[in-house]
């Protein structure tokens, strides 16, 4: 079955440093979504990427989808304490546009003030 691997599992940064998490799928994806889960909370949708090579930005967050549609990354510039949480990627198999997702293991981000 489809596997989605996410690295690193943990990342500790000083406030103001940059942060990147990477996501790799064993199969080509139809699209990929990113979610954020605050400590003690539930996952909340951030963004979806659909096109090969797509890059989207949300303020300090930059999301990329690889040319082969098998990998993705989330980059946060100048982290803030409000960025603390677990970031998940979630991929949808190629050939489908909706329905179930396969989640990566998540990257737990800690930001030290």
């Amino acid at each position, binding site marked *: 079955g489809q596997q989605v691997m996410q690295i690193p599992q943990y990342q500790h940064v000083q406030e103001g440093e940059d942060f990147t998490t990477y996501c790799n799928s064993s199969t080509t994806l139809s699209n990929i979504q990113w979610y954020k889960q605050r400590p003690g909370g539930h996952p*909340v*949708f951030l963004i979806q990427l659909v096109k090969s090579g797509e890059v989207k930005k949300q303020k300090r967050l930059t999301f990329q989808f690889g040319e082969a549609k098998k990998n993705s990354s989330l980059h946060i510039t100048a982290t803030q304490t409000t960025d603390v949480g677990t970031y998940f990627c*979630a991929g949808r198999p190629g050939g489908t*546009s909706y329905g179930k997702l*396969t989640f990566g*293991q*998540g990257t737990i981000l800690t930001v030290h003030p």
Partner: protein
Amino acid sequence: NAGVTQTPKFRVLKTGQSMTLLCAQDMNHEYMYWYRQDPGMGLRLIHYSVGEGTTAKGEVPDGYNVSRLKKQNFLLGLESAAPSQTSVYFCASSYGGLARRGTQYFGPGTRLTVL
């Protein structure tokens, strides 16, 4: 709108006991999902439903059953709880069509401990 709600929020069971987790959504979503979250394992899909009266197995379905008798509700049952089912359970829902691309909306979670 309340979005996705889950009951109960916390529960402690003894091995062998049974229970049902209830998920409700008021967004008229066609699709609903049950996940479990364990440290270092991410979110793993247990069962899902693409519409009222239909259910399907996910990645880790053993030991669980589900029912979707009404479009807005999705029930997760544990017939005979085991310590390995200690976890945080999340329900999610999404539109089924292409228009909104299947963004999933999650409930607040149920923390289950099986002793």
